[in-house]
């Protein structure tokens, strides 16, 4: 698993991060989200916002590891907002309506035994996000875009 962090701060105070996420690699699971969280802590984002980003990024990262062959988790951090893209090559989602329902899961048993696949991933992301978009094609993959604005918002 190559987990390259390439923080590139430009004159607009924009930080871009990109992580390759390998399907099925549970040992490194969460590392991309932890790196993103550390970046936000380093630049002094409010704790409540960091929590929402951490939850959304973690669930998006875990969805790639649980369901896809491979994927990329990207984040763009500005003073105004954090935008996260999770794009994978994987099975896609057959019924997004069902996938958005809390408790619905297609994860296999061995993954559920580890405490994943509770059917809470996408609902958790939506709850934490100000903007949540999902595009999926069965047999090809899924793209998610999450925007969380830097303003106080009750979770």
């Amino acid at each position, binding site marked *: 698993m190559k987990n390259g962090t390439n923080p590139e701060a430009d004159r607009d105070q924009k930080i871009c991060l990109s992580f390759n996420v390998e399907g099925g690699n*549970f*040992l490194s*699971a*969460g*590392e991309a*989200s*932890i790196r993103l*969280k550390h970046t936000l802590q380093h630049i002094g984002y409010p*704790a409540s916002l960091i*929590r929402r980003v*951490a*939850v959304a990024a*973690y*669930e998006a990262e*875990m969805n790639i590891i649980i369901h896809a062959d491979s994927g990329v988790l990207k984040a763009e951090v500005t003073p105004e907002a954090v935008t996260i893209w999770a794009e994978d090559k994987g099975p896609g989602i057959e019924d997004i309506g069902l996938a958005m329902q809390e408790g619905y899961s297609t994860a296999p048993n061995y993954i559920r035994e*580890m*405490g*994943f696949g*509770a059917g*809470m*991933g996408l609902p*958790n992301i939506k*709850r934490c996000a100000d903007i949540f978009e999902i595009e999926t094609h069965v047999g090809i993959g899924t793209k998610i875009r999450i925007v969380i604005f830097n303003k106080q918002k009750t979770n």
Partner: protein
Amino acid sequence: MKVKELVAALDLTVRSGAAKLERDITGAYVSDLLSDVMSNAREGNVWITLQIHPNIVAVASLLNLAAVIVSRGAEPEEATITKAEEEGIVLLTSREPSFEVAGQLYRLLHKG
């Protein structure tokens, strides 16, 4: 209540993060579903679980939990302990089941 007081009161074994036992506990959460913990545990909480794999460390780190207690004598995987040490996560073990650990902790946190 500090983590070190919890360790003494519940006779817990410290498996990692021995340098972080001075931290205050804000509450606790009991669950073996990681997404449930991500959604509902709060900063500074103690998390009581039966899960033993390294992903509990990522969850604890992302939520900035005060400690993780692995209950019912379950043995954390070697990779879990290594990762917890790297991330500075307090990993504790108890011989008692989750219900007993939670009950004792509840009484300690809510007395007075």
